[in-house]
């Protein structure tokens, strides 16, 4: 009944709406989405490089190549909690495919992430490095894996949050915890051996490491990439399962 072409239109219109609403009355527009992670990068640089003297070469690039993809994940997951809540009227009255809403949220954050790529290129130049040809297929490949993972989680959280509003608190705490359990501020060889497996078993660790390898060294580890797709597919399967079993009740509870 719903053709792919219509789905495409729906996603385009909806994403455009989200972008417009977000930047409607802000003068600097999307610059804000770069300003935020950059400010964090500066702070962390000051703390870890200048004060604590961490011995990681090219620490600025090291930071932003981890922070930018993390930002995509973090914002998308946070926003997904309110995907249906903030569109209550639409869900209550119309029957378009509901799965589109969390997808558009994840997609919008992906666009923001794309907008930060030039910043990474600039910093590479500053450090006398340059982007590699592998980006051409590396960026789409890892992006797709991360998109699957994020969309799966978004489906779970956007549906469940309608029924258990406490979820919001857990997720915001969980994200902070996950941030420090992901090698964004530190490199994997700094992790003591006995915590090594714990840190690396977190799916986002693999994502961040893959991004960093690609951005800083132009390297793609295809075995690792395979694992990332594994996480993505598991998240999607769970997401579809939960979403499908709850979707017919959205209109009742809103």
């Amino acid at each position, binding site marked *: 009944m719903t053709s792919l*072409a*219509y789905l495409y*239109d*729906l996603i*385009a*219109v*909806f994403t455009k*709406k989200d972008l*417009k*609403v977000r930047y*409607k*009355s802000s003068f600097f527009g999307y610059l804000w989405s770069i300003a935020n992670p950059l400010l964090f990068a500066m702070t962390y640089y000051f703390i870890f490089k200048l004060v604590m003297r961490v011995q990681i070469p090219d620490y600025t690039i090291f930071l932003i190549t981890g922070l930018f993809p993390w930002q995509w994940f973090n914002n998308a997951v946070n926003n997904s909690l309110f995907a249906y809540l903030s569109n*209550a*009227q*639409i*869900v*209550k*009255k*119309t*029957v*378009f495919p509901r799965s589109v809403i969390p997808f558009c949220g994840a997609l919008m954050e992906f666009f923001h992430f794309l907008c930060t790529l030039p910043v990474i290129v600039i910093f590479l130049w500053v450090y006398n490095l340059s982007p590699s040809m592998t980006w051409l297929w590396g960026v789409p490949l890892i992006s797709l894996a991360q998109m699957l993972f994020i969309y799966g989680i978004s489906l779970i959280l956007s549906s469940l949050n309608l*029924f*258990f*509003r*406490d*979820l919001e608190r*857990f997720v915001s705490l969980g994200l902070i915890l996950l941030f420090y359990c992901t090698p964004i501020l530190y490199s994997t060889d700094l992790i003591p051996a006995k915590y090594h497996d714990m840190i690396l078993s977190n799916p986002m660790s693999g994502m961040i490491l893959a991004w960093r390898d690609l951005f800083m060294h132009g390297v793609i580890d295809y075995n690792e990439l395979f694992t990332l797709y594994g996480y993505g597919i598991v998240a999607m399967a769970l997401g579809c399962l939960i979403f499908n079993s709850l979707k*017919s009740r*959205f*209109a*009742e*509870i809103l």
Partner: protein
Amino acid sequence: MDVAIEFIDVTKSYPLYHHIGSGLKDLLFHPERIFQLLRGKKYLAIENISFQVKKGEAVALIGRNGAGKSTSLGLVAGVMKPSKGKVITHGRIASMLELGGGFHPELTGRENIILNATLLGLRKKEVLARLDRIIEFSELGEFIDEPIRVYSSGMLAKLGFSVITQVEPDILIIDEVLAVGDLAFQKKCLETINDFKQRGVTILFVSHSSSDVAKICDKVIWIENHNVKKIGTASAILPQYRAELIEETPEEARAEATAQNIQFTGNGNKES
């Protein structure tokens, strides 16, 4: 395909989600309470309703607040699934969105039209092709490029209705929205609805204004206490309905209203 909408022994009950609000706390400390809630307390919105609406008919659902009209509309629109029984519909369904609902206050009228029409099932190029006609119908003039947070409620109603006029539905659901526009626009809406009727569109209408119902609908389904009380022609049912409303003395009516309010605090705002 003579029948457009058919309800066969439809029952719809909701769990009282309202109480699950503090769910996780209960889940941790009183798990048995959650099960009680999930199993026990259910709110019965409609019970064993059966009716048929033929293609091209204009049918009104009437009844008091909380009788189950909005639930029935939700079932027809397909946003809800019946707990028991079957709801069968044929063709594209468009429901007119509530005032302001489905519209985003920060977007302009034009942007909202595109969003809304796409949600109702139109392809983007179809929307763009009809955009001018929609804007013309809405009579909003240069306000069309203003964010709709500056619109009056009448202007919002105009915007909502003008989108519907170009969607070409097979079944049109109108839920008490005509009351806000000015008289001239109301008249235009009624004309458009009659136009739809001429073209064989099935219309499902909910209103508390029996004069509007009389103007649009040939058939009336009177829902009371979650059941169908009577089905018949508008001219036969409406006088009875009016008579019953008047019959209740004001005191009784007020008491009834309060009773219904209490009943509905547990149910959020299902009837709005």
